[in-house]
């Protein structure tokens, strides 16, 4: 069992090294002639006007929050799915799970009614 995770650990090291090596190889093999115009921001070929790191729409925060709630609940559903075949996982447990999902749906409906899903 530990061996399997050791494999993933070594692979994660390898997966970091592979792109790093190819980028470094590209940097070594390619020419290097920086100049101020070339190193400027490309931005459709014109000079950038104003700051790029601007405030962005609150809509993205809303989507992020809804996602957070949903994703957490969905990840909790995986252990439930694994426990499903067990005999001790009876009708009561299923009702609790369905209640859990109903809460999720109520949240979605609330967000929907409040207009959080409308994209202007």
């Amino acid at each position, binding site marked *: 069992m530990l061996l399997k*995770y050791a494999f993933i650990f070594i692979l994660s090291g390898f997966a970091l090294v592979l*792109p790093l090596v190819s980028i470094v190889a590209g940097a070594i093999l*390619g020419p290097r002639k920086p100049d101020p115009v070339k190193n400027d921001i490309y931005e459709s070929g014109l000079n950038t006007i104003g700051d790029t790191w601007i405030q962005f729409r609150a809509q993205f925060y809303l989507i992020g929050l809804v996602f957070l709630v949903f994703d957490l609940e969905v990840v909790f559903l995986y252990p439930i799915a*694994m426990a499903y075949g067990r005999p001790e996982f009876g009708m009561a447990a299923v009702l609790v799970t369905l209640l859990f999902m109903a809460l999720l749906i109520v949240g979605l409906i609330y967000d929907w009614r409040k207009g959080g899903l409308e994209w202007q």
Partner: protein
Amino acid sequence: MAEWYQVLMAALVGAGVPEWIATAIALLVGVTAIGLVAPLIALILVWLLRKVISRIQDRIGPNRVGPFGLLQTIADIVKLLSKEGINPSRADFMAYNLAPILSVFGVLLLFAVVPVTRGLIGVDINVGVLYIVALGSIGIMAALMAGWGSNNKYALLSGFRVVAQLLSYEIPLVLSMLAVVLYAGTMRFGELAEQQGNFLGLGWYVFLMPGAALIFFVCALAESEQTPFDLLEAESELIAGFHIEYSGMRFAMFFLAQFLSGFVFAWVGAAMFLGGWQGPGVDLPGIGGFLAAGYMMIKTFAIYLLMIWVRGTFPRLRVDQMMSFCWKILVPLTVGLISWQMVVQVLDLPIPVIAVLVLVGNLLVMGIGLYAVGRAIRQEGFRTKRAFTPDSLIGTVQPVAE
């Protein structure tokens, strides 16, 4: 059936190698195999995409370098290697340089759990599906880092779209995979493939759960940034996407990650819904293993070709259409599907009845989903309504009425 590293280690120990060296060799062989095969697959995928898209668009595609243009991608890689990697002076150094590395990192790790044939899986961990779900988010982070770190307004816009789209579509994706896990009762890819072997191919989960399979396919398209959902690299709106400021090998890394993520999703789909390595003759001694690996690859490439077909024929969605399709159609449908399946499976019914009820639920979900999409298309009036009504007919293609 022993797994590949057990076989390898037994052979090495049998040859008189100490056990810890045998373990190290087995691990390194596996890691190197994945690390070398994945970029090679990407080379084939790029060639395949260009050829198929060319055929769809009535062109020939690459045919100069090597037989059938097979070496075209290698020539492109050599070109990218010899390009200058520009460091924009005003970019955020850490985010800008880390993003291409992270995007490949997230995808390569996914190759650890997808199955090739019986006993030949990188690692057949007992949380395989959850592992795919968890690591799928690293690509989102990399794209956002690239968009933010480039200090470019278009790249930043693209980064926002990445967050909105990939986060949203992850939920129905995870839920449609949950439908299979719930029925199969396992998250191991090896066991999932094993369970789909009976009834001469009719045991494939795509026949039992067509609704979940369809939703999985749509979400896989969105998650791997393929065409109907490629808003984050809409060339006509955003110049290129979050990788505008990247050049040379750094750009190639994003390219590699995108192709590989599409392929991994096709692979996961083939393993979960199309029966994995199952097919006629896989139980034969000797040749069976090769047949099984062949079936697995054929199924994966079939799904990938379907993705390319969609890419070559579908127009791009608008942002609001894409978001409401996810939150108002896919999420309620998948939650409903899961709830239905939970109720059906807990009732004390014989297995064929459960299977039929699950199938009915899936067909219902498919029907509702397709109906909702059809209604949305009719409301939007694609192809029937003009974007604006011109005051005069000068410059329009409409024939002047007599």
